[in-house]
């Protein structure tokens, strides 16, 4: 087991993604990466899919990554890191390497829920000792805020803009965390940078488990969410407190809710500060907010029932 996290010790740790990268001010993604890397007590090698995080952190001749890092393409971060991990196993078996190293892939929601789902599913099924982290900002941000299957219901994006005939995204989000849990891998979790201790504990737990692990981490994007640059963490907190983004884990098939809001806030609290949901507050779009609330309630109830099932 990893040691208990203490803030004092954390403050002494190196930050392994340096300042000076070119992500937008207030972007959630580098904060997520910083927390993930800080949580590890082991050396980490990372793969990164094409997307905001990748294009803004390694522009030749500069790199923000203080760990070995590889970017290959958009849809193959999982397959790429699976290759790195396999070579590690091969060389370890031959006695050419003896250090304990952990392997993490970072992918955006587009690179994970959509174009990279096959590569991710394959790598998980093959049982590589790796942690895949999806930083979910709810759209293809790098190419200019296009809709992905992670985009929330009703959100305004550049390929499904809210107009007089179409009220933004007309489909529900894909529940990727559940899809990954259905792979029956040893560890799946959902986390948010607002609850940093919970996030880092989950990473530490995941890294102690041998085999394939998946974490879905909410990653606010002020460009795409049309929100203030200094509201990112607040928004990720509201996502958790409204249960839009419940914090839970599924360890060896056992579901556990890791944070229970004292009082579940209405979804409007999460939607209102974001420009991408502005049109939902027009009278004709009321039904979208109502449906969003129903979807959230249903999923939250389902999670609680699942948790109770294992508790009894």
């Amino acid at each position, binding site marked *: 087991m990893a040691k208990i996290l203490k803030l004092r010790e954390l403050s002494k740790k190196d930050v392994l993604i340096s300042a000076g990268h070119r992500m937008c001010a207030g972007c959630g993604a580098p904060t997520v990466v910083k927390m993930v890397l800080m949580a590890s007590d082991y050396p980490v090698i990372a793969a990164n899919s094409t997307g905001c995080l990748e294009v803004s952190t390694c522009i030749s001749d500069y790199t923000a990554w203080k760990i070995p890092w590889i970017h290959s393409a958009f849809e193959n971060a999982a397959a790429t890191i699976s*290759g790195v991990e396999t070579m590690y196993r091969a060389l370890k078996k031959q006695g050419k390497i003896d250090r304990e190293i952990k392997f993490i892939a970072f992918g955006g929601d587009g690179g994970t829920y959509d174009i990279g789902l096959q590569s991710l599913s*394959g790598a998980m099924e093959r049982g590589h000792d790796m942690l895949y982290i999806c930083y979910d900002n709810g759209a293809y941000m790098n190419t200019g805020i296009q809709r992905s299957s992670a985009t929330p219901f009703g959100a305004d994006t550049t390929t499904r803009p809210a107009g007089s005939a179409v009220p933004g995204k007309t489909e529900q989000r894909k529940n990727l965390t559940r899809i990954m849990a259905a792979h029956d891998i040893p560890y799946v979790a959902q986390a948010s940078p607002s609850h940093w201790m919970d996030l880092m504990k989950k990473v530490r737990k995941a890294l102690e488990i041998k085999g394939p692990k998946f974490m879905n981490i909410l990653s606010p994007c002020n460009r795409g969410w049309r929100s203030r640059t200094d509201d990112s963490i607040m928004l990720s907190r509201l996502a958790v407190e409204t249960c839009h983004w419940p914090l839970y884990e599924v360890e060896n098939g056992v579901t556990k809710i890791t944070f229970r809001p004292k009082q579940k806030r209405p979804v409007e609290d999460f939607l209102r500060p974001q420009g991408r949901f502005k049109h939902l507050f027009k009278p004709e779009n009321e039904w979208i907010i109502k449906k969003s609330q129903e979807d959230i309630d249903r999923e939250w109830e389902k999670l609680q029932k699942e948790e109770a099932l294992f508790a009894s």
Partner: protein
Amino acid sequence: MPKIVAATGNEGVANALRQVTPDVCAAYPITPQTELMQRFSSFVSNGQVQTELVLVESEHSAMSACVGASAAGGRVATATSSQGLALMWEILYIASGLRLPIVMPVVNRSLSAPLNIHCDHSDAMGARDSGWIQIWSENAQEAYDNTIQAFRIAEHLDIRLPVMICYDGFIIGHSISRIEYLEDGEVQNFVGEFRQVNPLLDIEHPLSYGPLILPDYYMEYRKAQDEVASKVSKIVLDVADEFKKLSGRKYGLFETYRLDDADIGIVILNSAAGTTKDVIDEFRDRGIKAGLLKPRLYRPFPYVEMGEALKYLKAICVLDRSDAFGGSFGQMFLDISTSLYPYDKKPLLINKIYGLGGRDYLPEHAEHVLNELIEITRSGKVKAYKEYIGVRE
């Protein structure tokens, strides 16, 4: 002592891979490559080779895993055909752009649609500009020998580039023929220990692979890649020399057959070259000066050497087992034309497309072509620059 066996081409290449023992191999089934990786996998299952297999869910992931494994710092191989190579296309450029010495047998097969599992060269031709070295093989022996040499070429410290070894699906891949195997120890000595260059697994020296390079430096990066290609020919020849010492078998950038004093010639790749050589013998017996050139190193294409070898001829037919659609010629015809362009006096050139989707290439096809070349040298006139042969009207 070499061991002489009767084996399929795929079996021979699987044995070459076993003898080389890559650290990591990725595998995904596709006809006619499947047999190769199946045989290799059974070597793994039976403990006859210490290689970690990655049994991926697609060829896209096969090449992606190879990129990761190769960057990590070890010897890597995979194999494919046809649609599998097409699916890898995106990552082929990444493997070469990152200068990763991955070795990949490509068991040549046609491309869909229409679906067809049999031999032609459309698959590898579609990847000829991807920055990979391509080495083509006439028969099972060449496929075996080229696979072994490919590791030395790919891993050469002056180039570090991925290599494809191409051989004909079914015709070579699945046919049993005579192969002379080297001893395991000889192969291992020949390829040597893998030498790491900037391995990702070196935690003490963290490196970033695959940066974004903007217009300020992208072109310099590409120019460097082009310059590296110019070093390949010499390395291929050096490795061939060493291989000859070991095996007694001679390889070059291309093979010429009765070409030195020839008036007419055929340029043709892979298995069809064998059939053509027989027909050339018959024409020679009749006093006709016919010859053949069979490319081996197809990428980077040895334009200068090729032009020098062919410039003396009066007429040449380039036979392509693939077509570059769009009112153009077969891919190899375009390359041979380019080789000959600099010369004031040059042969007349024609292009025949043959053998698509496994259509048989028969001695009568070679005869037809040689007779046409005789006619061209007599009349000085070309009737048709491009024609499909062995096809219904």
